[in-house]
């Protein structure tokens, strides 16, 4: 599709934006209609919640998926999935058990047309340190990711900052393995420097969020981002995250990829609120990107 081939920054949406309303007030086609309305072609799904019969969708469902993507000009960008480490009571999943989940998702993501995966690893502490076997799991999955041409990406998510040791560990791993099939998804919540109305900032973030320029050395490893938003004002401004600086830096450095809207503000149970917020967000992005 045209939108996919042009280099530059493209707009997309994560189905996360409307999760409590999904299956209540809307379905897959409805989310595609909204994206078409906004000219936002890139899509992230949360595989488990969106794929009917996950992890084994029927042929009928997959046919419907392809037909809808085609009709609404949707570019499958990121496939959100989880490697469950706490699957069974009393013990952590083994490398083999983790790989079994991961490889199946790689194949399914690739078949459905996705090029990136948001690979959520299990964590072992409150700082979100990944499970100790992560290197082993990812290394063994790399040949599959390469064969099926999808990039595995942990999400860098608040309270993790772009300057944390965890990021250094990931970069070191990528360099050592010399791979293009492992990278990051940066969630813009890491740049949040003003509180969402009615909420506190996460601990530690009052003084020291990630700075927009922290993203510069990481750009080569980033294949798509969660364009997190908490509060879009009536005049199309995100009031908690320094979007102007972030987007300008990404543009200046010639980053290519998709920004996937992810709403994490209040009133998620209100359909009209969520729909107004996402449209405002895309008016802002369109202006910042010069579309």
């Amino acid at each position, binding site marked *: 599709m045209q939108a996919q081939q042009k280099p530059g920054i493209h707009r997309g949406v994560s189905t996360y934006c409307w999760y409590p309303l999904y299956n209540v007030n809307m379905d897959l086609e*409805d989310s595609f209609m909204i994206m078409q309305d*906004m000219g936002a072609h890139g899509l992230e799904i949360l595989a488990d919640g969106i794929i009917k019969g996950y992890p084994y969708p029927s042929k009928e469902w997959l046919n419907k998926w392809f037909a809808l993507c085609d009709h609404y000009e949707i570019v499958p960008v990121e496939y959100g999935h989880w490697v469950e480490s706490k699957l069974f009571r009393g013990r952590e999943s083994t490398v083999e058990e983790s790989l079994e989940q991961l490889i199946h998702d790689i194949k399914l993501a690739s078949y459905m047309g996705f090029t990136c995966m948001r690979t959520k690893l299990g964590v072992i502490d409150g700082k979100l340190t990944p499970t100790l076997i992560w290197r082993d799991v990812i290394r063994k999955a790399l040949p599959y990711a390469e064969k099926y041409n999808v990039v595995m990406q942990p999400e860098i998510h608040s309270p993790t900052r772009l300057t944390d040791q965890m990021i250094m560990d990931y970069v070191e791993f990528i360099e050592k393995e010399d791979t293009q099939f492992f990278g990051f998804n940066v969630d813009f919540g890491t740049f949040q420097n003003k509180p969402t109305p009615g909420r506190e900032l996460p601990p530690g973030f009052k003084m020291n969020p990630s700075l927009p320029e922290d993203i510069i050395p990481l750009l080569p490893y980033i294949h798509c981002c969660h364009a997190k938003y908490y509060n879009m004002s009536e005049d199309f401004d995100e009031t908690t995250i320094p979007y102007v600086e972030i987007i300008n830096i990404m543009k200046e450095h010639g980053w290519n990829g998709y920004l996937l809207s992810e709403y994490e503000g209040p009133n998620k149970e209100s359909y*009209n609120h969520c729909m107004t917020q996402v449209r405002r967000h895309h008016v802002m992005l369109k202006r910042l990107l010069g579309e």
Partner: protein
Amino acid sequence: MLERQNIQTRGFHNVYDEDGNAIGFQLCFRSTYYKGVWLSQVRVGDLIVDGEVFSREDQTWIINDVEYTPDEMEKLGTIHWHILDVATIVVKKPGGLSQGYHDVTVNFGTVSSYGPARFAPQPKDKSEWDKPFPIEVFSMLAVREYHNRMIIV
């Protein structure tokens, strides 16, 4: 699925020709009545955006993937507009609508054979009540929802 109100926020966008020029806009509209109607019972009125009036001649309605002019619809007594089928109203407007908020009003009516009181103003003169009513008896409903909340991206 359907959004609760008549005017759906889903499906509101500009429409373009093959060269990428905006030639108009579309919006989706559903009947919130409890039964469907035959196309010949639909009466299309003005569609108003931010005070600009688009008459029925400027509109086409797409129902079940088939596009009709309002005149064509009035002749079709065997095609049913089901209440779960959202109509797409396509409006001619060179350049399309501008980015930002829009205040949209759809005027439409449906003719009913069995319950005029729901569709037309009831005569105040009670002696009219047992006299045959005029043939075209129905009310044009002005549906205006989400004032200032319909956003073109």
